[in-house]
C-alpha cells in the first residue's frame, strides 16, 4: 500500500538537533535566574515545550511550581517569578499588574520574562509605561522551529496568519526569516530559493540580510532548494474538506502539536488517550497519506496479519516460546494497541462522515471547484445556513463560492449575508468585514462580470478595449481567477474518467480525484521548470510577487552533493494542511524528491476561518 516510489530518494536531514538547541538555550535562560522560582507558561507554549523538555528538566533547574498564564491574580508565594510567554501586549500588561500589585503590598520579588521566539518593542514599551521596566528582566528564547515529524517543522505561530494577512502587521517577518537562517546555518547552504507572495519576498529579504550579517559557510549542504509560499496565494485548498486519513483526523479530532486526544468514542473505554501521530507509529505511518476509502481495507488486513503472528505461539516448544516473548511479543502488543486505536478512530470518522449531510457537502464542494451547477450550490448553501448547522461549514462554503466564482453576485451576497447573520448572530458583521478585507468573501464588481463574460464569449470585444478593461479593473479587487488558473494548470481532472484511489495517478487523489491542490501544483511546476519561465500568465493571475534566485557562483556547484538538490524545503507562510503535506509526499515519491515542510502552523479550514471570526470580545 505504501508506495515505494523511486529507489534513489535521498535521506532526510536529522532535525532532532533543533530540539536539542532549543532545550539547551532554555536551560541556559532558566539558569539566568538562579535559585528556586515559579514558572508561568503561556497556554499555547505548553505543548511545544512538552515536545522538547519535560517537568524533570525544569525541576532540575530549580523551577518549583508551574502555572498556566491565565491573566488572573496569582497565588504564587515564590520569591522569584519567571514568565515564559509569546510577545503579546495583553500578557505583558498582566505581568505589569502583578508587579505593581506586589509593589503596592510591599512585597519584594524578582521577575523575569522570557519572550519566545523574540521580544517586541511594543511589549517593552508597556513595561516602561506601567513603570516596571527595570524591575523585570527580559530575555529572548529563540525557539523558532519545532520538528513535528521527520519531514514537518512548525513555527507554532498560528497568529502569523491573522496578523500578517488580515491586520497587515509584519511583526513576524523577522521571525520567519530567523527560522530560515537557522535552517540555512545548520543544513545549508541553499543553492536555489523560489517563492511567491508578498510575505514570501519579505521573508526572503529578511533572511538574506540576516545571513549577510552573520555566517557564511561551505559545509556539505543537506538541503538544496527552498520554496516560499504565502497562504493567500491559495486559499481554496485549505478550505476544502480533507479526505486523506491524517487530514481527516485533524479535521475531526484536531491534532495539536503532532499529538491527538482520542476520546471515549474512539477508545471504547471511559477514558481518553493521547497519541503521538508521526512516522514512529508504524500503523499510522502506512495509512496517513491514504484516501480514507482505502484505510479500512488496510486496517483489517493488518489485523489478520497480527492474528497470524500471535497464532505462531501454538505448537511452540518452551525455548521458542521464550524467544517469542522476549523478541516479538512486545512489538506485537504495541502494534495491537495502535491498530485498535486507529480502527476506533476510523469507525468514528465513518459514523460522522457517511451521513447524508457530508456526502451532500462534498458534492457541493466538487461542483464549486468544477464550476458545475453553481445555482444549485447557492441554494444548498442557503439551506445549510437556514438549518443553522455548522457555522464554520456555512462560512467555508460561502468562501469557496466566492473564490471559485470571483465573488458573489451582489444580490446573492446581500441575501446570503443577511441570512447568515440571522442564523448565527448579527455580531458576525465583523467576521464578514474581515473576510471581505482578505478577499475571501466578496461581491462581484460590475466590471468583473464583464471580463468573465468576455473570456467566455471570446473575442467579441477587440483587444484594445479588453486591454483598457483589464487596466481599469486590475487596480480594483484582488481576484482569485480560479477558473482560469484551474484551466491552465489542469487542476480539475476530466470528469467521467474512473479514478482509482488505491493507485493514485496524481495529487488529485487527496481530494478524491476531484482537484489537484493549487499550492502543490505550483511547486511541482516551478521545480520542473527550475523557475517561473513559462508560467508568466499564471503568476499574473496570482497577482505576481514570484521570484527565483540562486546563490553563489557556478564554481560552487561541483561541490554540492547531488542528493541535497533533491531535498526541497517548502515554507508555508500562514499555515499548511496535512492534505497538502500528503500531496507533496506523493509528488516526492513520483519525482524522486524529498520534501520538508516548514510551516508557521498546521492549519485546516476550521482553524483558518476561526482565526477570522470576530464574534467574541
Amino acid at each position, binding site marked *: 500500500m505504501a508506495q515505494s516510489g523511486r529507489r534513489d530518494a535521498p535521506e532526510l536531514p536529522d532535525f532532532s538537533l533543533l530540539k536539542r538547541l532549543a532545550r539547551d538555550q532554555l536551560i541556559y535562560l532558566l539558569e539566568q535566574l538562579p535559585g528556586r522560582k515559579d514558572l508561568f507558561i503561556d497556554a499555547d507554549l505548553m505543548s511545544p515545550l512538552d515536545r522538547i523538555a519535560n517537568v524533570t528538566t525544569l525541576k532540575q533547574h530549580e523551577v518549583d511550581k508551574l502555572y498556566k498564564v491565565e491573566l488572573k491574580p496569582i497565588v504564587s508565594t515564590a520569591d522569584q517569578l519567571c514568565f515564559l510567554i509569546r510577545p503579546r501586549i495583553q500578557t505583558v500588561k498582566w505581568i505589569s499588574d502583578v508587579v505593581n500589585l506586589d509593589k503596592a503590598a510591599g512585597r519584594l520579588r524578582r521577575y523575569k520574562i522570557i519572550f519566545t521566539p523574540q521580544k517586541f518593542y511594543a511589549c517593552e514599551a508597556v513595561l516602561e509605561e506601567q513603570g516596571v521596566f527595570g524591575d523585570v528582566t527580559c530575555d529572548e528564547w529563540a525557539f523558532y522551529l519545532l520538528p513535528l515529524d521527520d519531514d514537518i517543522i512548525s513555527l507554532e505561530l498560528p497568529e502569523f496568519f491573522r496578523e500578517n494577512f488580515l491586520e497587515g502587521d509584519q*511583526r513576524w517577518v*523577522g521571525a520567519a526569516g530567523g527560522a530560515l537562517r537557522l535552517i540555512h546555518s545548520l543544513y545549508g547552504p541553499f543553492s536555489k530559493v523560489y517563492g511567491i507572495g508578498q510575505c514570501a519576498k519579505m521573508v526572503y529579504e529578511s533572511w538574506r540580510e540576516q545571513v549577510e550579517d552573520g555566517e557564511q559557510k561551505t559545509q556539505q549542504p543537506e538541503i538544496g532548494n527552498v520554496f516560499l509560499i504565502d497562504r493567500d496565494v491559495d486559499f481554496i485548498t485549505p478550505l476544502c474538506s480533507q479526505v486523506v486519513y491524517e487530514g481527516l483526523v485533524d479535521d475531526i479530532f484536531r491534532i495539536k502539536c503532532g499529538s491527538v486526544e482520542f476520546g471515549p468514542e474512539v477508545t471504547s473505554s471511559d477514558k481518553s488517550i493521547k497519541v503521538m501521530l508521526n512516522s514512529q507509529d508504524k500503523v499510522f505511518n502506512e495509512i496517513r497519506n491514504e484516501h480514507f476509502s482505502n484505510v479500512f481495507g488496510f486496517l483489517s488486513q493488518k489485523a489478520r496479519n497480527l492474528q497470524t503472528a500471535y497464532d505462531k505461539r501454538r505448537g511452540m516448544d518452551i525455548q521458542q516460546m521464550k524467544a517469542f516473548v522476549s523478541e516479538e511479543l512486545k512489538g506485537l502488543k504495541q502494534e495491537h494497541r495502535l491498530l485498535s486505536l486507529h480502527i476506533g478512530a476510523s469507525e468514528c470518522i465513518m459514523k460522522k462522515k457517511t451521513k447524508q449531510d457530508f456526502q451532500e457537502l462534498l458534492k457541493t464542494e466538487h461542483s464549486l471547484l468544477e464550476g458545475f451547477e453553481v445555482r444549485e450550490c447557492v441554494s444548498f448553501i442557503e439551506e445549510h445556513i437556514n438549518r443553522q448547522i455548522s457555522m464554520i461549514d456555512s462560512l467555508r462554503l460561502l468562501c469557496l463560492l466566492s473564490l471559485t466564482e470571483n465573488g458573489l453576485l451582489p444580490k446573492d451576497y446581500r441575501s446570503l449575508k443577511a441570512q447568515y447573520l440571522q442564523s448565527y448572530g448579527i455580531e458576525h458583521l465583523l467576521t464578514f468585514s474581515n473576510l471581505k478585507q482578505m478577499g475571501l468573501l466578496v461581491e462581484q464588481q460590475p466590471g468583473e462580470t464583464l471580463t468573465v463574460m468576455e473570456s467566455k464569449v471570446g473575442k467579441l470585444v477587440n483587444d484594445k478595449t479588453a486591454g483598457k478593461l483589464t487596466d481599469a479593473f486590475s487596480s480594483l479587487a484582488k481576484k482569485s481567477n480560479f477558473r482560469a488558473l484551474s484551466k491552465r494548470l489542469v487542476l480539475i481532472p476530466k470528469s467521467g474518467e474512473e479514478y482509482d484511489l488505491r493507485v493514485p495517478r496524481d495529487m488529485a487523489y487527496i481530494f478524491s480525484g476531484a482537484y489537484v491542490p493549487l499550492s502543490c501544483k505550483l511547486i511541482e511546476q516551478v521545480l520542473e521548470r527550475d523557475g517561473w519561465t513559462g508560467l508568466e500568465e499564471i503568476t499574473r493571475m496570482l497577482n505576481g510577487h514570484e521570484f527565483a534566485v540562486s546563490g553563489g557562483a557556478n564554481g*560552487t556547484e561541483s561541490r554540492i552533493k547531488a542528493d541535497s538538490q533533491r531535498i526541497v524545503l517548502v515554507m508555508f507562510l500562514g499555515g499548511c494542511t496535512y492534505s497538502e503535506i500528503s500531496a507533496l509526499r506523493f509528488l516526492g515519491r513520483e519525482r524522486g524528491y524529498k520534501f520538508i515542510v516548514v510551516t508557521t502552523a498546521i492549519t485546516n479550514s476550521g482553524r483558518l476561518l476561526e482565526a477570522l471570526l470576530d464574534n467574541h470580545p
Partner: protein
Amino acid sequence: MSRAKPEDDEYWNSSKFSAFTFDDEDDEFTKMKESKRAVNSILVDDDDDDDDVEKVSWSGEPIGSISWSVKETASSFRSSGEQSFPKIDTAPSLPKQGSGYSLSSLFKAFTDTSTRAYAPELRKPKSECKDYMSDWSPEETVRRMRKGRAYSLERFRSLQDKLLLLDEAVSLHDGNVITAVLIYLKRSLSKEILFRELMVREVALRHYVHYLKEMGEQKLLLMQYKEHLNIKDEGRRRDFLKSCLSLPFSQDDAMHVQDHYTLLERQIIIEANDKRGEAEIFRKYPRKASILNMPLITTLYYSCFYHYGEPEGTFSSPANIRKTFRISEKQYILTALGARAKLKSWFDVDSLFNTKNWLGYTKKRSPIGFHRVVDILQKNNAPAQVLQEYVNLIDDPELRLSLAQKYKCHDIVIDTYKDLKDRQQLIVYQGKVERGSHEDRKIEELINNMQIRWKN
C-alpha cells in the same frame, strides 16, 4: 531543587551572570564608544564595532556556558565561502481588497491633500551632530533596532527626520521595528499630524491601527460596535446598541445593526415574561437557557416552540418575528417545521404545507424539497404513517425510491416501480418483503397483471 540554598540571594547579587537590560548594554556601549572617540574622533566603521559589542551584549554570557556552546554548535561550520543571494524587489504592487471600511477612509477628517515633500539634503550635515549615537542615519538606526542593538531615537526631532525614520523602517519589512518607531512618533507628534502622515503610508497605518487595537485604544467604526460584546447587562447592552444606530455604517450594515437592537429589545421583553414559566408548555418542556443574545433564527425557533399560534400583535409570536425581521418563507418553514416536529405536533406540521387550490382542494406545497422535510421528520422520530405521506410527495422518483427503501415505506416503493414500469425491480423487491404479507400479495398481483406494459 536540592540546590535551593538560603545564600541564593547573595549569589545573585554577586553573580557575574548579571541580567541583561538595555541600560547595561547602553552603558557598556557608551564607554566603548567614548573611548573609541577619544582615541579617534573620526566616524568609526559601524560593522567593526558591532562585532565588538556583540561579544558581550547577549546577556554577557561567559565562555563555556550552555549558551556559548549552543552558539558554537550552530556556527561551527562557519567559513569564508561566498554564498550570496541577490536582493529582490519587495515593493507591494496591487493594493489589497479593501473592506467596506478601508483604514484610510476612517481618518478622512485628518486628510491633507498636500503630498509630503522633503529633500534628503534637509538632513543635518554630519558636522553638526558629532555627538555620540546621534550620527546614526535613519537607515543605520532601524537596522540596529532590528538586530536588537542599542539605538536612540532622540535625535529624530524634525518632522522630516521622523518621517525618514518611519519610511526606512517600513522599507525593512520588520513589523517589530515599524511599531517601535510608531510608538515613538505617537509620543512625540500630535495626533492630527501623525494621522495626516499615516494617511499616505498604508503599511505604517495598518501597523498603527493594529497596535492601538492591541492596546485597547482603538475605536474604529466596527470596533466601536464590537464593544457591545463586552457589556454583560442586557439593558445596558441594548442601550449601547441603540447608540450605535447613529454611527455611519453602510446602508446594509445599518439595517443589520438596527435589527440587532430591535432583536435584543424583543428578547428582553420575551425573557421577562417567560422567565416565570407559568404556561403549561414551560412546565412540560422547561427552558434550558435564556433567550437573551441568541441569534434571530434561534429566537424564531423558540417562539415556534413556546409561542406558536399567538396572534400577530404579540411580540413573542412567530408571525410577528417573521414580519419584523423580513424572514423568508423557506427559512420560516424550516424553522417552524423543526420546532413543531420536535413537539410531535404532526397536525401543525401538516398545516405548514397545506394550500388550497381554486377548487378548494388541499394540496401540499413546500419551498424546501420534501426529501429535506422527510429528513427533519425522521430525525424527530415521526411515526411511519406521517413519514410515508411526505416520502410520497418527493418529486424525483429516484430520490423517492431511495428514501422509501431506507424508511421501509413498502407501498411507495411498489407504486414507484409500477409507475416506472420496472417489473424486474419489483421481482427483486418481492424478495425483501415478508412472504405472505400484504406487500407480497400486492407485488404478486402486479407482476401477474398483463394490462401493464412493463419495460422489462
